[in-house]
């Protein structure tokens, strides 16, 4: 396994140390989604779902954007096909994460692969990528603990939302999402070590801001693909090595 000291990676540590790091690293992101979890729970109740149905959304679907959008779809149209197409469109970026981790995960036993897939959220992807940048390898223990911690917090937040029901305070007002931004900035900026990544990040900033401002299509997926393709094109033009 490539845990090379000579490539500027931190020296390897024990599994327990990685698990502890996972909890610390996912903490700010867990904190930031608490309001969204509460919102998911309380909105589900408001839209007439039972407590069990509402909690099952977080226990099984485990995808904030999908859960909120699905409530919107049910409330607006009640059309079941659009419920599933919306779910797929929002989840499609996870296909990318799945592809990114493929080489690390495919050698693991089926149970491990399924568990890691189940817990594979934006947040887990982000901290695991930062871990890989630090240590130069993929730790299944780190990934599992980070993903599971996030899952527990998400479900407790949903439960609180179900419990307090429709009477939620204006959570947007407190700016919790800044914690997500700060964490992702702290993870992305140190990875800017080549011209191509710089181009990719800069393009993604411009594209995501413009697409969000003008509310064009799916800003997240659109800007992600534009950022990736511009990074790819730059890397190809400059003849940068793969990996």
């Amino acid at each position, binding site marked *: 396994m490539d845990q090379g000291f000579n490539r500027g990676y931190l020296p390897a540590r024990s599994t327990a140390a990685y698990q502890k790091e996972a909890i610390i690293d996912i903490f700010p992101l867990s904190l930031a989604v608490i309001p969204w979890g509460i919102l998911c729970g309380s909105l589900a109740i408001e839209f007439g779902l039972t407590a069990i149905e509402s909690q099952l959304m977080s226990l099984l679907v485990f995808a904030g954007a999908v859960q909120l959008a699905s409530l919107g779809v049910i409330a607006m149209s009640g059309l079941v096909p659009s419920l599933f197409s919306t779910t797929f469109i929002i989840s499609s970026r996870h296909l990318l994460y799945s592809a990114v981790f493929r080489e690390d995960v495919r050698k693991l036993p089926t149970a491990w692969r399924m568990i890691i897939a189940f817990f594979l959220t934006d947040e887990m992807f982000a901290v695991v990528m930062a871990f890989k940048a630090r240590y130069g390898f993929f730790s299944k223990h780190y990934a599992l603990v980070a993903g599971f911690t996030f899952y527990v917090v998400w479900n407790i937040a949903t439960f609180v939302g179900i419990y307090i029901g429709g009477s939620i305070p204006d959570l947007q007002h407190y700016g919790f999402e800044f914690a997500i*931004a*700060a964490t992702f900035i702290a993870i992305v900026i140190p990875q800017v070590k080549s011209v191509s990544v710089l181009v990719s990040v800069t393009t993604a900033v411009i594209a995501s801001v413009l697409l969000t401002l003008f509310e064009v299509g799916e800003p997240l997926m659109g*800007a992600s693909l534009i950022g990736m393709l511009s990074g790819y094109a730059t890397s190809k033009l400059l003849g940068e090595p793969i990996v």
Partner: protein
Amino acid sequence: MTFIFYVVLMAAITFTCRYFFFANVVNYSLHPEIKRLLKFTAPAVLTAMWAPIIFVTDSHLNTIGNAYFISGIITILAAILIPRTLPVIVIGLVSFGVLRFFTEATLIL
């Protein structure tokens, strides 16, 4: 009861997206050019998430007077100077907290 059925189907879709490339049914390796493209997944996707939080509020471009904008710039600068994640997040959050406190105070006055 029907809704529980929908929830299970939605869960199947989200899980399939997450598991898709972990499946070993066909034992293939991703093409090197695909690997080159995927290298940009983390920087591009995560940026597409953080940039609108920092630069856009309710379909308007944030400017220098906005707490998200200023703290975002502070966090970016901190991330350039400090290679470790946690101190950068703390600096970002503290600056945001302080700025929010003062902008709220100004509003009250």
